């Protein structure tokens, strides 16, 4: 164990060499502008970043949208859909691209860490269905384990109840209940996510968490019925290329490929004989990102990601079509 005084000295010495620049004037000016224009449109964040930690991709059992909800009455109830029988465990399979498209270079394989959540998880997705597009999606997740992201944010009070709220300037909010039931609701910041949380009921039936929602936000439908998520494996296989700006990831704990990303509209596209879901957006930092998720086989979910605007939907589809399923190394 390193001596605490030695470490304290190292940290303070290093910190002392870090220059600090005051930006006070910019803060006072920027904040004044915002005060005058409280409704100013904010740039969208890239929700997939948040999703990577929050695992907010949810899945739908069928390829098409399932619009079962209305604006009044019980939105959904009943047993969640399990992982398909015989599906491989997340982390046991991997993407491979034996014959990559011409634009792909420096292809390599690696692993990434998962395991950000534990316990049982049941999730559902809401969205405004507009043809092939799911607009302004919202996710609701009930869980009884731990989740790294649940410790983020600050305590806030909505409708007389305490929540933990993680707000992204790009317009996405992650809202967590404090106490029981454990719920995570994600979606656009201008939606009353607390009301959705308070309208959600959780039952523990036959070893599964079931979700029931009393009412839906105006214009919303249930696009992903409550579904049990699979184990969040500690290690996942990755195919990376183009200096890390392009990759394919295994996301099979999400069961099915429909990405109900909080905040970003997702669009249905064709991946060979399968259906994939594509979105592109800008991060809070202004960076560009695109992702395409699809299911090559029931219970297996891959996601192709690009942070290079030169390789958007068409290239990601091409990469997805060239991707095969292999056993994890």
């Amino acid at each position, binding site marked *: *164990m*390193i*001596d*605490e005084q*030695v*470490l*304290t000295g*190292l*940290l*303070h*010495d*290093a*910190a002392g*060499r*870090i*220059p*600090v*620049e*005051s*930006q*006070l004037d*910019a*803060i*006072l000016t*920027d*904040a004044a502008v*915002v*005060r005058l224009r409280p409704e100013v449109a904010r740039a969208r964040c890239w929700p*997939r*970043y*948040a999703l*990577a*930690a929050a695992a907010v991709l949810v899945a739908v059992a069928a390829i098409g949208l399932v619009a079962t909800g209305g604006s009044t009455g019980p939105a959904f109830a009943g047993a969640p859909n399990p992982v398909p029988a015989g599906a491989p465990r997340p982390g046991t399979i991997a993407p491979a691209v034996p014959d990559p498209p011409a634009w792909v270079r420096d292809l*390599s394989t*690696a*692993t*990434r*860490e998962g395991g950000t959540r534990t316990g049982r998880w049941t999730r559902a997705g809401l969205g405004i269905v507009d043809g092939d597009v799911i607009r302004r999606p919202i996710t609701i997740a009930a869980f009884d384990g731990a989740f790294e992201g*649940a*410790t*983020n*944010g*600050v305590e806030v009070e909505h409708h007389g109840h305490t929540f*933990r709220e*993680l707000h*992204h*300037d790009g317009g996405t909010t992650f809202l967590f209940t404090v106490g029981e039931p454990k719920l995570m609701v994600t979606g656009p910041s201008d939606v009353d996510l607390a009301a959705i949380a308070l309208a959600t009921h959780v039952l523990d039936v036959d070893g599964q968490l079931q979700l029931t929602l009393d009412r839906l936000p105006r214009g919303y439908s249930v696009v992903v019925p409550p579904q049990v998520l699979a184990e969040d494996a500690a290690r996942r296989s*990755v195919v*990376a290329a183009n200096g*890390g*700006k392009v*990759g394919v*990831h295994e996301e099979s704990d999400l069961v099915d490929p429909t990405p109900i990303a909080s905040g970003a509209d997702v669009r249905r596209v064709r991946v060979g004989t399968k259906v994939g879901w594509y979105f592109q957006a800008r*991060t*809070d*930092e202004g*960076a560009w*990102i695109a992702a395409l998720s699809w299911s090559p086989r029931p219970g297996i979910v891959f996601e192709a*990601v690009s*942070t290079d605007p030169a390789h958007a939907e068409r290239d990601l589809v091409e990469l997805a079509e060239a991707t095969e399923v292999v056993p994890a190394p």
Partner: protein
Amino acid sequence: MDPAASPVGMSMDEVGAAFSRFYEAELAVQVRAATLLLGSMAAAQDAVHDAFVEVYRRWHRIEAPGPYLRQSVLNRCRDVLRHRSVEARHQRSLLADDVPAQDAPLFDALARLPFNQRAAIVLRFYVGLGETEIAHELGCAPGSVGPWIRRALDRLAVELHPQEER
């Protein structure tokens, strides 16, 4: 005025003056703590700046701006690291990109710690918080902090062994 005193009930001029004092009192330690967490001065400046903006915008509604600011900086640092991890998911460690070269071993060693361990180390041994305060800042059980710190100290002893022997 105590920079951490309640700002509730102030006029705009008073808010500006109180916030300015708060900013000057907190800026250096927040930027440097964030740099130790992120391994990047530029990213730390951005995270701290954005956190201060949030605090200023909510000044009238925040009763304890000091803890609020620290939590906001921590959350933004966590977000930055997540963003990076998505952009380069196969890269585990964060590479110090704009810190002084002589401190690169320290930043590399910190970068190899899990976020909560890294944050606990920085908050304990740089910011000087107690374990209870650290637990509050990280939103975890107080009993978690001690083991995180011990595990981190063990790992840092291995990573920084050459420096320790100097």
